[in-house]
């Protein structure tokens, strides 16, 4: 928490939790869902659920890009990393995600060339420093990350830099959730940093089509509580507004320049969300104009075997849909822990199982 940020101080937190208590006394028991690993992190790091009335449950949803990255993409990344004169570059939390047969970290231990970076722009430098090496950036993330990747690809790039794109776009999965969810979820907390890029409009269908309230929220304790309070207010007055509880970072129209980069570079196609399903128009893929940079088209990324489903016993898919919680899984805290993850929700700090493990959370 940033101590100088008023949204991290006790006073507004206190006031908001009291206001939330009053509204829940009116609405009765209810469940809200968030879609963002960072919201789960904030809830756990600051113990925010302790401040909420017992009748109000905040359910974690499918909001971890590492967790939903399909095994097939990891298999492809490993295949590329094993090619001679080729280095696969990616974010640190992708390394230990299990693919069908192994993780990138295991492949690296066997000699595959894998490097970790903190920003997509680091691979530009790596490609310039090693002109005879083929560099492949394994791009995994939601809108926020993919906007940065698009900004990079839109530049004129060195010929030896390629992209294996497995990014996902959030609004379509919310639509899917609306089709299959059990209707006990009465409102959605939308991810603040994705909305910084896209703005509110892509979520408008929540209001018009499904008539459920949704609120964009930030990540300091009072940001999260403000989002929850605004959702409860909509519910209490019987409205289904799409609201912004994070105006200090999110403009309603989003970041137009970043949106332009994304549209210039990426198209949206059906894409697999690990454990969930194929989701229409949710996978970022490189447009025709960038085919020479596309690792899937320009290089051999075929591992030569079909991708495996999720590990036996792992409940990640049901956790991401809000049907189960980590403690419902027999592996949780036993065979599966952040050091030895079995399922994808345990790998990334954004994953629900990982977050519950690290913060000792045992119930909603």
């Amino acid at each position: 928490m940033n101590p100088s940020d008023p949204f991290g101080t006790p006073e507004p937190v206190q006031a908001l939790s009291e206001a939330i208590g009053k509204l829940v006394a009116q609405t009765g028991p209810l469940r809200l869902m968030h879609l963002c690993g960072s919201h789960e992190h904030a809830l756990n790091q600051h113990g925010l659920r302790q401040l909420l009335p017992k009748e109000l449950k905040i359910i974690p949803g499918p909001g971890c890009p590492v967790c939903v990255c399909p095994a097939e993409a990891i298999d492809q990344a490993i295949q590329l990393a094993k090619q001679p004169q080729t280095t696969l570059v990616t974010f640190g939390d992708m390394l230990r995600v299990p693919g069908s047969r192994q993780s990138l970290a295991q492949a690296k231990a066997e000699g595959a060339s894998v490097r970790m970076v903190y920003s997509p722009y680091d691979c530009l430098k790596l490609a310039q420093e090693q002109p005879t090496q083929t560099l492949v950036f394994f791009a995994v993330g939601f809108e926020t990350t993919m906007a940065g990747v698009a900004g990079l690809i839109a530049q004129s790039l060195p010929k030896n830099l390629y992209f294996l794109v497995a990014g996902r776009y959030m609004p379509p999965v919310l639509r899917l959730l609306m089709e299959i969810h059990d209707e006990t979820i009465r409102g959605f907390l939308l991810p603040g940093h994705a909305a910084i890029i896209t703005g509110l409009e892509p979520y408008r269908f929540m209001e018009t089509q499904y008539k459920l309230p949704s609120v964009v929220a930030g990540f300091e304790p009072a940001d999260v509580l403000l989002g929850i309070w605004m959702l409860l207010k909509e519910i209490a007055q019987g409205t289904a507004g799409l609201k912004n509880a994070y105006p200090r970072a999110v403009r309603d129209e989003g970041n137009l320049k970043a949106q332009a980069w994304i549209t210039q570079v990426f198209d949206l196609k059906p894409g697999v969300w690990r454990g969930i399903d194929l989701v229409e128009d949710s996978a970022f893929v490189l447009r025709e104009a960038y085919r020479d940079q596309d690792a899937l088209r320009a290089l051999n990324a075929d591992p030569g075997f079909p991708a495996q489903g999720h590990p036996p016993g792992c409940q990640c898919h049901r956790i991401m849909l809000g049907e189960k919680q980590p403690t419902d899984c027999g592996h949780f805290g036993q065979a599966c822990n952040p050091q030895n993850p079995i399922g994808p929700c345990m790998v990334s700090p954004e994953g629900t199982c990982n977050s519950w493990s690290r913060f000792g959370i045992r119930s909603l």
Partner: protein
Amino acid sequence: MSRIELAQGAGGRGMQELLDQVIRPALSNPLLDQGHDGAYLPGQGLVMTTDSYVVSPLFFPGGNIGKLAVCGTVNDLAMCGAEPLWLSLGLIIEAGFEYDDLQKILASLAQTAKEAGVVVVTGDTKVVEAGKGDGIYINTTGIGRSRLAQPFSPKALKVGDRLLINGGLAEHGLAILAARESLPFETPPISDCACLHGLVETMLATCPEIRLLRDPTRGGLAALGNELASASSLSILLKEKDLPIKSPVQAALQMLGIDPLSVANEGKLVAFCPEASAEKLLKVMQAHPLGRDSAIIGEVIERQSAPLWIQTQIGTRRLVEMPLGEQLPRIC
């Protein structure tokens, strides 16, 4: 598990298991079983400790492996309440290592030892084949003389005891990570690597009722708190708002998604003292150059369902798990 994993060297739960299940049982004896940073030897009031240094990179802002090899061992003695006297020095050098670098490391080691008033009295040097070491590994063993009437033990902790720390958390671990991964900082974070025996001497002189000292190295404050609370059969409650963390360190760790509580320190100590002495001890620490940012950061509480807890800035309480072993295994 049939093979040692890298994470078992990182000071968290994996390392604990390795020690408890394999190493201690194989060698168990009353002196080893004291389970402290060093052993209080019978009779003479002497304390002995040993530590091996395998840090990567070898040079980092705020120090290098040579300085670290003196500070780390001197601090282990200091945490036993001992005045450090003698060191041994074991060098394992990889063929091909630059003479220049070796000289720099030794000069820094000698300088640090001189400042600390310890003498290197014996040593051993081995050279291994290229590719079989990471440039250089160093082992130092330290012998010191205890200033305590009674050896420190976690069993001495009492409910209400306060925890004090001598300054900002997480600086060593972040400096190593930044140097290793070439993270783009405008001003690179600097390791807090320092010898703490001088500070300890003044602390013990004013506050002989200190119950226990421990340095939060690998696994950071989270590992220290979990370990000591478990050993004392009590629990520890940290106060988030009182934890000294420099704001650039805080910001960088937040960006990297790393919890400052589980990051290593090399120039920090945690002192446990009775509540009534806490303010007096704090003043003494703050008056010392290595303790200007000292703070009272928590207290010992009755045994709860978990050993270590933190009261968050907004007043909620959550438990702090033993780190499982971090992403940065080679930090010291």
